[in-house]
C-alpha cells in the first residue's frame, strides 16, 4: 500500500430512502496515514455514508471504494483490511467480552491475542463479564478492542467515543493517532467537534446529506475567527456593531455584547470606542463548534432545496 492509495474514496455517492435524500452526491477521498474526521449533527447522513461504503446498504447512485477496492463487488476483500465500530454499538448481550472477541477473531482469522490483551489493559476493559451486564462505556471499550485487535489497514468508526469517560477518551484518541502514524487510515465520524479537533488531520463537514466542506484542521482554525465579549458603561445598540466588517452573530444584553469576528481588532475597537464608553474587552479563539456553525450558514443557500425536502429546521434557526 503506497501513500498515494486512497483509504476511502466516494464518487457521487447517493442514497435515497424513498423520498428522503439521506446522502446526496458525496465525493470525498481520505488518505492512509491520516485521521479523517467526518463531522455533522445527528441525522446528517454520517451513518448512512458509513453503512453504504461497508456494503450494508446499497447506494442509489455513485460508487465507493476502500483501498482501491470496489465497496460492493470486492467487499469480501475489503473486509479483510478494515476494522469497524458501528454507531450506537450493539453487541451480543449474552456473551462475555472474551467470548465476543473470540467470535470476531475467529471470523477474521489471524488475530494475535496479545493485541487483545494489550488493548484491554490499555482501555481497562473487563472481558470476563457478559456484555449485557456492562455499562455503555465499558461496552464501547469491547467494541473498540474488536475494531483495533486485527490491526486493520483502515479503521472506520461511527461515533466511537460514545459513553467513554474523559480519561478513556484521551486514551482512545492517543490510540487513533498512533494508528495513523503507522500509515493506516482512520475515518472517524462524530458530532462532537472537540473530539475531532484533538485527533483529526482533515475534517469533512456533512449536513443533510450534502458535503459542506473539506478542510485541513489547520485551515479551519486559520479562519482565525474570534469570539469577542465587550462591556460598556451604558446600554448599546446591536446595529452599531453589526455595521463593522467581519462581525457576525451579535447578541446584545443591555451593556454587554457578544460577537464573532474575523477582521483586524483595531478596526472593531476603534468603531465601538468612538460611540460608547468601552469598559472591558474579552477575546478568545473561536472553537470548532462556532466555526462549524458559521460554515452552516455560509453553505445554507446551496442546500436549501434539500432542507425543504427533509423538513428539518433551517440553519437560520440555529443560533449561537
Amino acid at each position, binding site marked *: 500500500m503506497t501513500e498515494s492509495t486512497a483509504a476511502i474514496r466516494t464518487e457521487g455517492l447517493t442514497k435515497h430512502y424513498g423520498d428522503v435524500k439521506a446522502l446526496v452526491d458525496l465525493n470525498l477521498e481520505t488518505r492512509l496515514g491520516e485521521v479523517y474526521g467526518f463531522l455533522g449533527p445527528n441525522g446528517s447522513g454520517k451513518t448512512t455514508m458509513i*453503512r453504504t461504503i461497508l456494503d450494508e446498504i*446499497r447506494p442509489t447512485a455513485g460508487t465507493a471504494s476502500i483501498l482501491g477496492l470496489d465497496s460492493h463487488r470486492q467487499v*469480501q476483500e475489503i473486509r479483510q483490511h*478494515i476494522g*469497524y465500530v458501528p454507531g450506537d454499538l450493539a453487541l451480543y448481550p449474552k456473551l462475555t467480552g472474551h467470548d465476543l472477541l473470540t467470535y470476531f477473531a475467529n471470523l477474521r482469522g489471524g488475530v494475535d491475542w496479545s493485541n487483545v490483551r494489550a488493548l484491554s489493559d490499555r482501555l481497562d476493559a473487563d472481558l470476563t463479564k457478559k456484555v449485557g451486564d456492562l455499562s455503555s462505556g465499558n461496552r464501547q471499550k469491547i467494541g473498540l478492542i474488536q475494531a483495533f485487535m486485527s490491526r486493520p489497514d483502515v479503521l472506520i468508526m461511527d461515533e466511537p467515543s460514545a459513553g467513554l469517560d474523559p480519561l478513556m477518551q484521551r486514551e482512545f484518541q492517543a490510540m487513533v493517532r498512533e494508528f495513523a502514524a503507522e500509515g493506516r487510515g482512520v475515518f472517524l465520524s462524530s458530532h462532537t467537534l472537540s473530539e475531532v479537533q484533538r485527533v483529526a488531520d482533515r475534517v469533512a463537514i456533512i449536513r443533510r446529506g450534502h458535503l459542506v466542506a473539506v478542510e485541513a484542521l489547520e485551515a479551519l482554525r486559520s479562519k482565525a475567527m474570534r469570539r469577542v465579549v465587550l462591556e460598556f458603561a451604558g446600554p448599546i445598540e446591536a446595529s452599531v456593531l453589526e455595521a463593522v466588517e467581519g462581525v457576525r452573530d451579535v447578541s446584545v444584553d443591555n451593556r454587554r455584547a457578544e460577537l464573532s469576528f474575523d477582521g483586524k481588532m483595531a478596526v472593531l475597537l476603534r468603531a465601538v470606542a468612538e460611540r460608547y464608553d468601552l469598559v472591558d474587552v474579552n477575546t478568545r479563539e473561536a472553537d470548532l463548534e462556532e466555526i462549524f456553525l458559521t460554515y452552516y450558514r455560509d453553505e445554507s443557500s446551496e442546500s436549501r432545496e434539500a432542507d425543504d425536502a427533509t423538513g428539518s429546521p433551517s440553519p437560520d434557526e440555529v443560533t449561537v
Partner: protein
Amino acid sequence: MLLQSVFTKTIRDRWLGMTIASVTLVLFMLYAMAVYSDIDLSIYTNLPEGIRELMGIPEGADAASLSYNVMLGFVGAITLAGLAVSQGSASIAGEERSGTLGILLANRKSRTRVLVSKMAAMVALTLVGALALLAASHLVPIVLAVEIGETHINAMMVHLVVNALFYGFLAMAVGAWTGNRSMASGVAVGVMIVSFFAVGLLPLVESLADLVRVFPWYYYDGSEPLINGVDWRHIAVLGGAGGLFSAFALVGVNRRDLRGPAVGDTLLDRLGAHPLTDQIFDRLAGNTRVARPWVKTFSDHQGLLIITAVTMFGMMGLLMGPMYAAIEADVAALSEFPEEVLALAGGGDFSTPEGFYEIETFSLMAPVAIMIVTIVAGAGGLAGEESRRTMGLLLANPIRRSRLVLEQALAMTLYAMIVGAATFVGVVGGSVIAGIGLSVAGVAATSVLVTLFGLVFGMLALAVSAATGRMAAAVYGTIGVALATHLVNSFLPLTDRFSGWARWTPNHYYLTSDPLVNGMPWGDAAVLAAIVAALLGAAVVLFERRDIRQG
C-alpha cells in the same frame, strides 16, 4: 386507579396483533364452515357415543357445531390464550428487560396502578378478540346459510375469555415475581400445552380419567359449554384462579427489586463457575460456542433444543408405547369407523399402534416441535441479528452474506435432525418397551419425513427473514402459513370439489402415504427436500440483494 396513558399505550402497542389474529380467526371460521357444509356429515353423526365424546362432537352434530369445535374449542382458544400470555409476560417482565420500566415508574405512579392498567388493557383486548370471534360465529352461518341448531355459542365464548385470561394472569404473576419474561411466557404456555394434552389423553385411560380435574384446560371445555351452556362452577374455578394470579402479580411487583436490562447469570453460568461442574460446562458452553456463526446460532438456543428433543424422546416417543398398550382394548372399537373420520382426527387409525403413534406423536407434535426449533433458529439467525443491530458489525468481518445464510441453514438443519433423531429413538424405544412391534424402517422413514417437513417451515422462516429482516414477519408469517397449509390439507381432501388442492401443501407429502406402515415414500421425501432447497436458494438470493436494517 386506572392510568389512562398506560392503558391506551398498551392497547396501542397491541391492537395490531389482536386485529390480525381476529381477522385470521374470522377467515378460518368462514373456511371451516364452508368446508363442513360441503361434506357428508353422516360419518360423524354415526359415530358411537364414546368416540364422539372423545372427539368433542355433540350429538346430531352439524356443520356449525363441528366448525365451532375446531375454531372455538381449539384454534380460537389457543390463539386468544397465547395473545394474553404474550401480554401478561410483557407487562412487567418485558418492560424490565427492555429497560423501560424504570422510566415508566419514575413518573410518580405506583407500581400497583401501572400493573392494574396493564391488566385492564389485557382484559379489554381479550374481550375485543372474543367479540370478533363471537360475531363471526353468529354471522358466518347466516352468510353461508348453514343451520346452527342447538349450540350455545355465547356460553362457549364466556368459557373462552375466562380461559384466556387465566393464562394471561398466570404469565403476569410469574413475570411480576421474577422479572423474567421468558420464564413467564414459558411457564404459562407450558401449563397450557401440558393441560391441553392431558385433557385429551387422560380420559382414554379409565383409571386416570379423574385426574383431568387437576388440569386447567378441563375447566375450559370439559363441561362442553357448546352443548350444555355455561358451567358456572367451572368458570368459578378458572376465574378464581385467574383472580388469585392477578393478586399474586400485584403483591409480587411491589415487593421486588426491579431488574435492569442486564443479562444476569443463567443456571449454566453458575454450573460453569462451580468447581465441581466447571469442566463439563466449559465444554458445553465455553469457547466452542463462538467458533463460527453456525456454532454460535446452534448454541444460542441449546436450552430450547434440549427441552424439545427430550420431550419428543420421552413424552411423545417412549411414553406413547406403554400408553397404547394400556388403552388398546378401549380403542379397539375404533377400528370399525370410516377412514374419513379418523383421517380428520389426525390422519390415522387409533386402533393400531401405527395409527396411534401417527395421531399422537407424528401428525401434530413432532412437526410442531421441529418447527419451533427451526423457526427460532432461522428467524433468530438473520432477522434476529438485524433487530438487535449486530448484523452490520458481523458483516464487517470477512464473511459473505451467502455464507452467513448457509451457516444459519446448517445450524437449523442440525436442530431439525436432532429433534427428528430423538423422536425416532423415543418411538422405537416405546415400541420395544410396550412390545407393540412398530417397523423400525417405518419409524425411520417417518422421522426423516418429519425432519424434512419441519425444515420446510424453518427454511420459510429463514427466507422471510432474509427478505425482510423482520422477526415478526418471519415468525408469525411462517406460523400463519403452517396453520393454513395444515387446515387445507386436513379438510379439503374431505370435499369432492377441492380434494386435489391438498397436493399444493407440503403437508400432503408428509403423512399421506402412511410411512409408518409402508416405509419410505422416496418421491414425497424428494418433494419436501426440493422445497427446502428452493427456499434456501431464495434466502441466499434475497439476502444478497437487500439493505441491512438497523434495528
